[in-house]
């Protein structure tokens, strides 16, 4: 994700994303610790489910299918 700091703040607030700059010597510049969820949105753009990175594909497919049946 990229944009101006203000654009990033707006989006992270909308989705409740936490991000914290970390000290590091990386050539990549400032590295961020950040929350790490996958968001399932419905057709109105509302957040309907949060998945962890470790959640199974099957669990996400089930969530998507239940929204399609709405």
């Amino acid at each position, binding site marked *: 994700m*990229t944009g101006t700091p203000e654009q990033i703040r707006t989006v992270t607030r909308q989705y409740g994303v*936490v991000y*914290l700059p*970390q000290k*590091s*010597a*990386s*050539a*990549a510049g400032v*590295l*961020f*610790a*950040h*929350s*790490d969820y996958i968001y399932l949105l419905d057709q109105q753009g509302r957040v309907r489910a949060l998945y962890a*990175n470790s959640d*199974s*594909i*099957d669990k996400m*497919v089930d969530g998507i299918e239940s929204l399609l049946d709405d």
Partner: protein
Amino acid sequence: MKAMWLALVMSVVSGVAQADCAVKADNGWVRWVPPVSPNSAAYFTLHNGSDKAVDVVAAESDAARAVELHTVVKTGDLMQMTPVEKVAVAAGDKVEFKPGSYHVMLIDLKQPLEKDSQVKLTLRFADGESLQLALPVKDEGPSEDHSHHHHH
């Protein structure tokens, strides 16, 4: 012409050029990223066939202006990528460099990555050995989520 054909076949079959090194690599790939992304990452599995532990201490590539060993640390709900000084591979053991874990960061790519092209990478070990790899640029790794096919 014949030699060139043979070299092509060999590079396709192995995907990786193996030097005379106690450590071998397989399942190597570099993540394709859109041209706007300055960074990417390289992944592979290292197998230490020797009876001594080895430490990967550095990586080099002409594809990027800086190359670093990184890992991903998860603390509570936060995840964080962080550089590491070395990655140890125990005797007779293997270590996977994969998304969400150890990886080689390619920082400030010199030119956009082309799908199915190859990125050359050199791994340096603490004992002075090195391993040359030629990794294909792909959207995803060789065996991510094979067990998750969902049928109806």
